[in-house]
């Protein structure tokens, strides 16, 4: 297990790095909100925010000023403490889960390996699953603290939905763990580098032009996992927690101003965790198509004739860009789906989770185990 560092300077660097990752996530939220508003307008044939600044980009600044000028409001019947705690805690699970996801090749110097992620955890998957399900508590706190029955109903629905899809989410990952045989996200990405190379039943199926990504081994698992993350982050088509038509705004009915913004940060942080995990499990993490980090490194050194250390830095930057492109693609899919699909009815939602996705995920993990088992014992 990698520690936070042995000397004071290393510990300080690592702690500052976690803050930087968190601030990056907070910074990404306004951009995503803008993308979401513009994207929804584009999909629904409207204009969206286009008045304030070029393409409406400064709209976010105007929104922030408006948030700041909002009166600080607590409903009289609510519980003040829970009402204030809920938005603060809403930011925590998504943020600390995201930091365990590796975003680029570690930057190796002579004395120290600098990881491009908040911190490395050797049981990364279990940690992320455990932490991100804590979001149910913040939603319940908000629903109970508001003292409104719409909030409470929204919170109950949301927590029931989150725990129901957690099962499908966990079981969809079992196939991935079977495939890589590890909980460590960095090791998973390493075993996905290179070209597609399937071994089993005494055969080797190799394709030089395809990457060795998890999606080719676990297509059903990927689909189930992605669908379940929509439910986990309370996004359409699973946003029953705030179904406007029936519950006003669900658990954040009574919230406004900066407290509302913090719930937004929490929601987008969960989207980022989901996208990051999708990329890590099924799309090779930071790897660039089927080139391994070492190949890219030697290519940089030969092409630009730079020192090994400069090549290391460039290597990390290029892989970070690769990760970001994949990551942004999944965030865009989240936004696209939200404005394309209608909302489920509540019983349909629960049926889908328990009666469709859970059995499919179960079948997927049994199938994966059986193929690995039979493929290594028998030949065709």
């Amino acid at each position, binding site marked *: 297990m990698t520690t*936070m560092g042995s000397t004071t300077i290393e510990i300080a660097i690592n702690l500052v790095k976690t803050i930087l990752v968190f601030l990056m996530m907070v910074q990404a939220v306004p951009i995503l909100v803008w993308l979401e508003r513009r994207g929804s307008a584009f999909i629904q044939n409207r204009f969206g925010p286009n008045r304030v600044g070029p393409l409406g980009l400064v709209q976010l600044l105007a929104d922030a000023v408006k948030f700041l000028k909002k009166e600080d409001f607590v*409903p009289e019947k609510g519980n003040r403490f829970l009402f204030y705690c809920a938005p603060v805690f809403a930011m925590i699970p998504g943020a600390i889960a995201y930091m365990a996801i590796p975003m680029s090749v570690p930057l190796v110097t002579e004395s120290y390996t600098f990881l491009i992620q908040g*911190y490395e955890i050797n049981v990364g998957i279990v940690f992320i699953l455990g932490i991100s399900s804590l979001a149910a508590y913040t939603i319940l706190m908000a629903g109970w603290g508001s003292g409104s029955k719409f909030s409470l109903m929204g919170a109950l629905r949301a*927590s029931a939905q989150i725990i129901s899809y957690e*099962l499908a989410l966990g079981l969809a990952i079992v196939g991935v763990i079977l495939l890589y045989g590890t909980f460590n996200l960095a090791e998973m990405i390493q075993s996905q580098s290179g070209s597609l190379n399937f071994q089993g039943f005494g055969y080797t199926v190799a394709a030089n032009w395809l990457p060795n990504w998890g999606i080719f081994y676990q297509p059903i698992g990927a689909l189930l996992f992605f669908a379940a993350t929509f439910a986990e982050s309370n996004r359409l088509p699973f946003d029953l927690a705030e179904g406007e038509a029936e519950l006003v705004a669900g658990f954040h009915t*009574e919230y406004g101003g900066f407290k509302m913004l913090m719930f937004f940060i929490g929601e987008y942080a969960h989207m980022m965790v989901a996208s990051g995990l999708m990329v890590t499990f099924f799309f090779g993490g930071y790897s660039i198509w089927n080139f391994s980090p070492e190949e890219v490194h030697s290519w940089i050194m030969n092409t630009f004739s730079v020192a090994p250390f400069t090549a290391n830095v460039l290597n990390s930057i290029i892989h970070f860009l690769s990760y970001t492109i994949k990551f942004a693609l999944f965030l865009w899919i989240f936004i696209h789906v939200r404005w394309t699909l209608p909302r489920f009815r509540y019983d349909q939602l629960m049926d889908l989770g328990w009666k469709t996705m859970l059995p499919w995920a179960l079948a997927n993990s049994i199938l994966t185990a059986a193929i690995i088992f039979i493929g290594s014992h028998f030949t065709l």
Partner: protein
Amino acid sequence: MPLGGVIFVTIFIAIFGTLLIYLARWTGGKAKKTSQAKFDIYECGIEVQEKKDTKVSVKFYLTAILFILFDIEVIFMFPWASNFKSFIASGAGVYIFSSMMIFLGIFIFGLWWEIKSKALEWD
């Protein structure tokens, strides 16, 4: 330890969020009570009729109980899955595969029973 990092970030975000709330309260000011209606909980504009301890469907509790049962069973699969390939490599493949299949048989029976007894019907 990474745990130190986790705790550090948790505390940092908690302080960050608290400061944001205080900042917003400082710039926006506390809500002035111009009328009682402003401080009532939101109920589509009508007079507040019910208190918050409104009736909650028992299905939510049932879902929570079933979740705990099934989630524990899913968690058992995690260490099994991470050791599956190394067990096969060391020649104990039949043992690890068949033992989990027996466990999953019970799991699937439980799921089938749960669906059959209509524990998951929302009406």
